[in-house]
C-alpha cells in the first residue's frame, strides 16, 4: 500500500529547495534529540561541499558536528561505534563515488552488528551521500551506486525526489533504528523549491508514492528521474502512472505489483548502469508475481554499462525525459 502525503493548506510552510530541506531537517532533529551527532570531513566551517550542514557547527558545537580526518572507512567505522553507544549518528560521505574505501566497515559492522549480536546491539544511523549525476562534475562525483547497497541486507536505502519528501524521509531515517543510506540527488539540490511545513513530520520508509495515477503503463523511478518521468508522461499519448519508489530497500513490492497489475505495462527509469541496476530486480519481481497481467515486455531506460563518462558526454549517458518517453512509447506500441 502506498499513499500520497500532502502539506495541508493551513500549515505554516517555508519555500525550500532540497538542500535547505536537508539542513533544516538536520537542525530540527538535532534540537529534538541530543543524541543526534553529525560526522564527516568538511561538514564544519564550510558546512559541507554542498552547504547542507551550513551553520550547524556554530549552533551545536564541535561535539555534535564532528569534522573528521579524511577517511571514509574511518568515518563509517567510528560512526558504528557511536551508534552502538547510543548516538543517532548522521555521517556524511562527500559523494557516493567516495563510498568505496568504506566498504569494509559497511559490510563487516554497519549492516552486520545488529544481526551478529542477535539484536542486542543496535546501529541507528543515517549515512547521507550526495548522489547521482547531472551536475557536470569530474570522475566519481556523479555515480548512482544503489545496487551495492540494495543487494546487501541489514540497511535501508532512501532517495527523496522533492523538498517536501526530503524533510519527511530524512526525519524518519534519523529516527529509525536501522542503518539508513539517505541518497541526495545533487541535480535537484537547488533546482526548484516548494513549500515545506515548518512542523516536524515523517514519511514512511517502506512505501512507494504514486506521483500520478494512470491506467495504461507504469513508470517506476526515484530521485532526480521523477521529474523526467513526469515530463515524458505529459508528452506521450498514454495515461501514465508514475511510482516514485522513495525507499529502494526494502522495496514496496505491494505497490510495485498493484500498479502493474492494473496497467499491464511497465518501464523502469534509473541513472545507474543497467546490468543488475535496480530495474533488474523490479522486472524480475513483476515476472515472478504478475506475469499474466503483463501486456508487453518491461523496458529499462537507464544508464549504460560503462563507467560514468566525462562531463562533455554525460547527457548522453543519463536518462532524461526523451529516453523515458521512448521507452514508454515502445512498450505502449508492443503487441504480442
Amino acid at each position, binding site marked *: 500500500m502506498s499513499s500520497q502525503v500532502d502539506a495541508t493548506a493551513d500549515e505554516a510552510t517555508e519555500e525550500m529547495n532540497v538542500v535547505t530541506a536537508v539542513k533544516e531537517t538536520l537542525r530540527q532533529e538535532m534540537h529534538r534529540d541530543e543524541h543526534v551527532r553529525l560526522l564527516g570531513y568538511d561538514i564544519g566551517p564550510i558546512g559541507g561541499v554542498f552547504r547542507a550542514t551550513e551553520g550547524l557547527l556554530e549552533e551545536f558545537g564541535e561535539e555534535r558536528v*564532528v569534522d573528521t580526518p579524511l577517511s571514509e572507512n574511518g568515518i563509517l567505522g567510528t560512526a558504528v561505534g557511536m551508534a552502538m*553507544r547510543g548516538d543517532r549518528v548522521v555521517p556524511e560521505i562527500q559523494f557516493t563515488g567516495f563510498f568505496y574505501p568504506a566498504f569494509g566497515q559497511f559490510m563487516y559492522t554497519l549492516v552486520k*552488528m545488529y544481526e551478529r549480536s*542477535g539484536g542486542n546491539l543496535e546501529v541507528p544511523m543515517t549515512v547521507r551521500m550526495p548522489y547521482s549525476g547531472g551536475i557536470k562534475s569530474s570522475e566519481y562525483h556523479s555515480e548512482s551506486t544503489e545496487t551495492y547497497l540494495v543487494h546487501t541486507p541489514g540497511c535501508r536505502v532512501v532517495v527523496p525526489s522533492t523538498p517536501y519528501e526530503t524533510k519527511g524521509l530524512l526525519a524518519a531515517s534519523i529516527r529509525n*533504528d*536501522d542503518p539508513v543510506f539517505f541518497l541526495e540527488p545533487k541535480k535537484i539540490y537547488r533546482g526548484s523549491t516548494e513549500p515545506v511545513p515548518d512542523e516536524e513530520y515523517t514519511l514512511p520508509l*517502506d512505501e512507494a508514492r504514486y506521483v500520478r495515477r494512470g491506467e495504461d503503463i507504469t513508470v517506476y523511478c526515484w530521485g532526480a528521474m521523477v521529474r523526467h518521468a513526469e515530463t515524458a508522461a505529459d508528452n506521450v499519448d498514454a495515461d501514465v502512472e508514475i511510482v516514485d519508489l522513495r525507499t529502494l530497500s526494502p522495496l514496496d513490492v505491494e505497490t510495485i505489483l498493484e500498479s502493474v497489475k492494473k496497467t499491464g505495462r511497465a518501464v523502469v527509469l534509473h541513472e545507474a548502469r543497467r546490468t543488475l541496476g535496480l530495474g533488474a530486480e523490479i522486472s524480475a*519481481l513483476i515476472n515472478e508475481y*504478475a*506475469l499474466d497481467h503483463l501486456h508487453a515486455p518491461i523496458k529499462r531506460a537507464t544508464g549504460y554499462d560503462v563507467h560514468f563518462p566525462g562531463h562533455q558526454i554525460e547527457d548522453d549517458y543519463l536518462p532524461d525525459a526523451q529516453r523515458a518517453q521512448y521507452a514508454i512509447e515502445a512498450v505502449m506500441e508492443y503487441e504480442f
Partner: protein
Amino acid sequence: MAQWTERRPSEEFYRVLDPDGKPVNDVPDVDESTLRRMYRTMVESRLFDEKTLAMQRRGEVSIIARTTGEEAVSCGSAAALEAGDWCFPSYRQTPAALYWGADKARAVAALMGTEPETIDEHLPLEGEPEVNFTPVYVPLAVNVTNAVGTAMTDRFRGTDGVSLSYIGDGSTSQGDFHEALNFAGVFEAPAVTVCQNNQWAISVPSHRQTAAETIAQKAEAHGVPHERVDGNDVLAVYEASREAVDRARRGEGPSFIEAVTYRMVEHNTADEESVYRNETEEEYWEDKDPIDRFEAYLLSEGVLAVDDLEEIREEIREEIQEAVDRAREVPVSDPEEMFEHHLHESTWKRDHQRAELQAERRGENPFTDFTGEGLQ
C-alpha cells in the same frame, strides 16, 4: 626481502617478571584476590581451549582458534577495565571475556554454530554484564575502529568510559587499524588498543608483516602514546594497561600497547603449523609459558600454595564440563532465525521468503506463489 627463517622478537620491552617468575621490576600494586582472579582466568582459558579442541576433534564444533600461550595479554589488559567500560575482542581473547565472568556455556554454544537468538533464548544472560563485551569480531581490524567510535562518544559526552580493543600483529597491516588510531589521536579518544603480537598471522611471520622494528612504533604515525611489553608477563601487561586506561579515563587520550607473545599452537584447527615453522622456535617459547611464569611468582609470594593448583584446575574442569553440558542441551537453531534482526520491522520480501522456507521444511513446494499474495 625478509625470509621465513626464524627471527626472535627483540626483548626491548617492559617486563615485571622474568620467565622464571622472578620480579625484575617493581611489582604493581594488585590485591591478592585480583591476582588469584587473573591466574584463575588464564588457567580457565587454557582448559577451555583443551576442552573445545577435544570437541572439535569429535566434530561437535566446527573450527576453533586457541589462545594457548597468549593468555596473559587479554587477561592482564581486561583486568585494567572497570564496570561500564567497553571491550571489543577478536577471536583470540577468551581470557578477557572469562575475566569478566562470561558464561562459558554461551561461548561453547556459539562455537557449535548456534544462532545468537537461540543462545539468548536457551542460555539467557544473567543480569547486566559489568563490562560491555561486543560479539567476537571475525573480520580483522574493524573492531578497533568501532572501539574508537564508542570512545569518541564518551569523549564528546564528557563521560569517563574507556574502550579497549584487540588486534593481532598481522592485522596491523590493514588500513582500518591506522584509520582508527588516527581518529583516536585527533579526537583524544579514551581508546586503548592492544596488539597481541603472537609472531604469526597464519603462516606469515611478524617480521614479514612490516619492516618496522616493533609494532608499537606504528602508533608514532598517529601521535598516539605507545608501550611495548612482555606479553607473557601478565603483570607487565596489567601495569601498562592500567596506566593507559587511567590516562584515557582522565581525558588524556588514547594509547597503544604491543604485547609480545607467541602462538604456541596452530592458527586454528584447519591449520598445520609444522609446515611453516620449526621446533627450535617452538621450544624457545615453551620456556616462556605465561601461566607457568605467573604460577611460579604466586607460589613464591605465597598467594597460592602448591596444593591449590590442582584444586583450582579441578574446579575449573568441572565448571567447563557443566558449561558444555548446558550448551549441549541447547537445541539446534531454528532455521527461521536466519531471518531475524536484519531490520527492525518485517518486510514483504522477508515475509515471503520466510514462508518459502517454511513450506520447504514442510515438504511443500515453496515456489507456487505466482501473484505475490503469498503461498496458499
